[in-house]
């Protein structure tokens, strides 16, 4: 499909990384060593960020202490959306290059992303009670997150419905890619439809409306959520790899070595 001698902007090293990524034993080994240092960092970062945000920042002058749920709500929402793109890009790689591991990554991302979307919805609803006076408000961003949850559940349900798992992965990749084209349209349209939500507090261009003392712990939390997402993704992938390759010699050897 891609000739190695064709002129390419991708160097040979990258191709070899690409081929290695397609190898389940290599990925299993490397993900194990990544998890060994990334998981402690994620847990530590989350502990530091949450403690900092919950105990050592000033209360908001209008919302009091209730705003502190932002340290869970915003990171979950940010990573939930990013997770969809991880899933869709993995799906695209699987469709285009038929890489063996890409569909494992795609299906590993779906439940993690759905769980984060659910967390964002629940924390948003809990935050809405003291702020807006109702558990559920049909606000643009909450509605968008609900639609995102359905997009995730759709991919998972479609995968479940196919008996032939190879076809299931390709069907889910197509669905995820269609979703990627649609997500900006859905978000923009829901945005126009209604907006009660406070405008975005973190802006990369121009001044943030959030105080720096509140922003730093939030950034720590967001980065920790990304790390946690990566850990969950790799963990899911490792289980899926072992399940899929359970009849191969390297998995048998692994089982013998680890007892």
């Amino acid at each position, binding site marked *: 499909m891609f000739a190695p001698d064709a002129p390419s902007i991708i160097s040979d090293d990258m191709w070899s990384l690409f081929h290695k990524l397609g190898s389940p034993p290599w990925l299993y080994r490397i993900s194990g060593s990544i998890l060994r240092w990334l998981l402690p960092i994620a847990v530590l970062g989350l502990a530091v960020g949450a403690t900092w945000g919950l105990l050592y920042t000033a209360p908001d002058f209008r919302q009091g202490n209730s705003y502190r749920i932002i340290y869970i709500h915003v990171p979950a929402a940010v990573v939930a959306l990013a997770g969809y793109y991880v899933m869709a890009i993995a799906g695209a790689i699987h469709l285009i290059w038929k890489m063996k591991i890409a569909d494992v990554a795609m299906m590993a991302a779906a439940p993690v992303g759905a769980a984060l979307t659910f967390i964002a919805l629940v924390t948003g609803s809990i935050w809405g009670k003291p702020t807006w006076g109702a558990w559920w408000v049909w606000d643009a961003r909450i509605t968008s997150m609900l639609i995102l949850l*359905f997009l995730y559940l759709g991919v998972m349900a*479609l995968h479940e419905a*196919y008996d032939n798992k190879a*076809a299931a992965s390709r*069907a889910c990749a*197509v669905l995820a890619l269609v*979703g990627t*084209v649609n997500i900006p349209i859905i978000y923009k*349209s829901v945005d126009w439809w209604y907006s009660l939500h406070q405008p975005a507090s973190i802006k990369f261009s121009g001044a943030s409306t959030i105080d720096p003392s509140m922003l730093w712990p939030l950034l720590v939390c967001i980065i920790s959520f990304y790390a946690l997402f990566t850990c969950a993704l790799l963990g899911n992938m490792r289980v899926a790899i072992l399940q899929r390759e359970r009849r191969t010699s390297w998995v048998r050897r692994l089982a013998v070595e680890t007892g």
Partner: protein
Amino acid sequence: MATSSFYGALLRRQLALALRRPVQLLNPLLFFAVVILLFPLGLGPAPDTLSNFAGGILWIVALLANMLGVDSLFRGDFDDGSLDQLLLAEQPLYFVVLPYFFVHWLLNGALLALLAPLFALMLGLPARATGVLVLSLLLGCGVMTVLGAIGAALTVGLRRGGMLIVLLITPFYVPVLIFGAAAVQAAVAHQPAGPYLALLAAMLSLALGLGPAAVAAALRISVDS
């Protein structure tokens, strides 16, 4: 076979298949009428309430009618093997699916849109919004047909695709519903509905440009599995 006669034959075949079952032609329209009947029963017969919600009700029911119909878009041809033949044809699948879209739009979209004024009258939608309602349904049903066809193509090989397709394609229908209902609302409120109709037309262009590729890919997966 020459390319133009190939697509012409395909279009005639789709139309003939639909027209030979006239009762099935009526099904989407009956669905439309029956579900409309539920709203006054559930919301109460007060004319003010109903005319307030009329635009939204008509749009939601049209969306449901389109969604229910689209499930069977490829099913017959999948079951009797004609789809395998079309996949083997030398013509690109991207264009082969267009006659399917057109006939589905004609029978589940255009026909509904033309009948919608009658139901709009029954629900008390102000007469000034009727034209916009018909136009928005004509455009919106086109978008929904393409998006629904993606879901239909993904689930055509599954034995129990019926409920699944609703979960798969409802999120994609959201922008269409928002702008379609907004166009009718704007017309009711004496505001220009043109921008909303333009957005629906833009969505239709985008769907017609990219949708057939997704449907073609999905059909290949369904037939292969």
